């Protein structure tokens, strides 16, 4: 074992008492992934293969070995499976992402954000 390995690994044990989810969206992403598998949109095996492959891809591309990267892989795996299985194309997804972004920007802080708020900007 090299000292570099040890340095990389040592924080793992210290991570033990960390909260499982740093951000609510991480829980939502996993909840979404499991709900869709339970519904049969894809199989648990397809899910783990895709998640593993996206995670390896990010790490191979130089992403840090952190929970953030793991959850980024979760989101990418979801997007890929939904696209491969047909229900949501990349274009439709990108449109919806920008609509939500616009809805947040158009909604005053503290008020509930609704998707139709994205239209306000377009109507101006």
């Amino acid at each position: 074992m090299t000292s570099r390995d040890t340095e990389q690994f040592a924080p793992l044990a210290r991570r033990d008492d960390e909260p499982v989810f740093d951000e609510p969206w991480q829980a939502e992403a996993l909840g979404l992934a499991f709900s869709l598998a339970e519904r049969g949109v894809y199989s648990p095996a397809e899910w783990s293969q895709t998640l593993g492959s996206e995670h390896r891809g990010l790490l191979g591309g130089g992403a840090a070995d952190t929970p953030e990267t793991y959850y980024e892989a979760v989101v990418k795996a979801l997007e890929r499976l939904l696209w491969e299985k047909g229900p949501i194309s990349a274009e439709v997804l990108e449109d919806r992402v920008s609509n939500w972004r616009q809805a947040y920007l158009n909604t005053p802080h503290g008020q509930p954000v609704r998707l139709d708020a994205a239209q306000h900007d377009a109507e101006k």
Partner: protein
Amino acid sequence: MSEHENKSAGEVHHELHSHLPPEPALRVKAMESLLVEKGMLDTDTVDAWIEVYAEKVGPKSGARIVAKAWVDPAFREQLLENGTQAVKELDDAGWAVAHLKVIENTPHLHNLVVCTLCSCYPHAILGPPPNWYKMAAYRSRAVRDPRGVLDEFGVRLADDIELLVWDSTSELRYLVLPERPGGTEGWDEEKLASIVTRNSMIGTQRDLSLDEGAS
């Protein structure tokens, strides 16, 4: 608008975006809202998953299974023989259990669980996995250098103790049945369950401390 005039463009830009969720959060929201519209998803299902697995289950379910195996030899035998069936009879656990294999630590054997592919884990009885379980550092080193990994977690494994590493898949998940510590004679299941830690059921802890259940 006037209060903005004295601020730099950067400050104004920052304020505008201060409550904009991070990009992955927007993407999750986008997928969820599209799936709900298509009738492929019920938001309640996702909320229920989060509530059950993140907040309610935790490792307590697994700890109850371990404690029962310690006091009930027939259950222990059934658990080791067919973990899926034994757990199903004990508890109404969801699909996340998949097929469950329970592996028993003995004075001469220690078991360590990993998922080298992604993060397969018996969610239904242990809750969501800890962050380190998902890190590539753990997933690769648990196989290449398991004794080194255990050492990092403070487990000094004597050379004469055999170490088995179990690689989980989406179809087969593992639960380590740790050894019942001495000094717990006469304890009831509830008190026994209180000393069973999550890590001991993954294998990154070997000796259980009596402190938790002493109260």
